[in-house]
């Protein structure tokens, strides 16, 4: 069974969002998502400083089974990306909520209000 941490918010497309304060949000994919994808082998990250729009593809995750788009969970500016993932895509499998974080987005306060809470995500994802 996948863990769905209570302190995070979620999207139907299996991204998690953590509010790290000051209008900054850390983003990754859920444990359930990495289970569906299988072993990740390649990650294409968005450009730092780029604008992303909620619901739009902003990166690519490739596993031994599939290539999947990463969707922006909220709109904003990409402030930081986890460059080390390029060399270590397996972190997305091993530690999706920790070392496998993908990017930090700078957004308006309250940007994550529309996202799913842990219980709602767990219900939708069936985990």
């Amino acid at each position, binding site marked *: 069974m996948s863990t769905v941490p209570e302190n995070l918010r979620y999207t139907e497309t299996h991204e998690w969002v953590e509010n790290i304060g000051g209008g900054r949000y850390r983003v990754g994919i859920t444990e359930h998502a990495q289970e*569906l994808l*299988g*072993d990740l082998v390649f990650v294409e990250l968005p450009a730092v400083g780029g604008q992303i729009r909620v619901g739009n593809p902003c990166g690519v995750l*490739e596993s*031994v089974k599939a*290539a999947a788009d990463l969707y922006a969970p909220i709109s904003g500016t990409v402030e930081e990306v986890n460059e080390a993932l390029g060399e270590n895509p*397996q972190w997305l499998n091993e530690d999706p909520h920790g070392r496998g974080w993908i990017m930090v987005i700078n957004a308006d306060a309250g940007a994550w209000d529309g996202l799913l809470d842990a219980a709602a995500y767990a219900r939708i994802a069936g985990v």
Partner: protein
Amino acid sequence: MNPTPLIFAYDHHRDPVQASARAAEEGLEDIPQTLLRGDALHWPNPSELEVLRHYTRLSQRNFSIDTHFYPLGSCTMKYNPRIAHEGAMLAGFARLHPQTPAPAMQGLLRVLWELQEWLAAITGMAAVSLTPAAGAQGELAGVAMIRAYHQARGDHQRKRMLIPTAAHGTNPASARMAGFAVVEIPNGPDGDLDLAALDAALGPDTAGIMLTNPSTLGVFERQIVQIAERVHGAGGLLYYDGANLNAILGRVRPGDMGFDVMHLNLHKTLATPHGGGGPGAGAVAVRERLLPFLPQPRVARDEHGRYHWLDAGDLPASIGRLSAHAGNIGVLLRAHAYLRRLGREGVERVSRYAALNANYLLKRLQAVGFQAAFPERRASHEFILSVTDLQRENGIRALDVAKRLLDYGIHAPTVYFPQLVPECLLIEPTETESKATLDRFVEVMQKIRQEALETPQLLREAPHHLPVGRLDEALAARRLDVADRA
């Protein structure tokens, strides 16, 4: 079985050659010393007989349609009749230079012209260009024509291409390459497109929609007429991905469903062995209003029955050339021979048996306990099983079932595509397999199901009877290393 050594292992009568010494010998002194290789070139040195045995041995390890049942979904791995190859290898075709003047290559031009005509008739379209060298290039040509059409009308705001979630991955890639933004439209639980989502996405910025029908979910899109009305109503065009044409060949025409432009994978739907990367031919067919934009060259026939090329001078609005000459002629010749042998009735039999074989397999596999992804739907020419029940029971995944099939001498079906269905196997038997082969497949699948429940370790460690066992695919992709450094 021992792994076959690399060709580099045959280095007995080796005579190491220093590149610098060679350079002097061959008068290459003007190449700077620093750029010359200092050590001996590692080059295999087998005898002719060893080369012959080496490659024959490797070829015997092929899993191919010539040796094994190959139900690889969405790939239509059918038998390619040898007579089609015979025709294509006739010296008059095979030795013809592509720059031969048209009056001296009337035979080939006639074949190409006839193929254009037949494909237009089969698809219900106005005209055809044979030049795209593969399915994906056909797709790119198709969406480029959609773009050219809107631009020619001054309709510059149409920048969005709608694509169902179930589409082949090449569709969004082609749309992006042609400069469109991709908008995904979800499929409903019965596999059909979500019409409400379609309505919400349609607007003055809609360039068109790309659809495969039957879809990659192995079912026929029943609302195609409504979809066509709505997309046309919004000013967009409909693109038909011909990947699954084998399911409807000779019975349903994309033109009649409302499509404006499409490609055909001549290499898979008609008669060329493919897989492993080619060769391909992705002919494109269009309705009247897209005709000016077709890629060139095409072949025309004048009132005296003489054939000639139509190129840039004749087709000023064409999106241009896609290959140096006229595409993969060898594949086009095979397609022509195949259609010629089948005739109108034979072509219809192809899709009839493709659909019958798929539905027969689906019903029998359901009867032995496998769960269908869309149990209430009839299969097109392929269908999807999901093994989530085995996963819950014993942790057995689609990959394990696929690997175990290899042990029984059956090529694995497509796994983990479409991505919408968890732990799925996409199975396409094609029309060229006998009932006996299909029955054996069911028997093997039933045995594997039993193994999955009783001795799951057997599946987890499969294949057991092949030259290599379970490879570390993740490591191979993460640390790609294809150089021999023996």
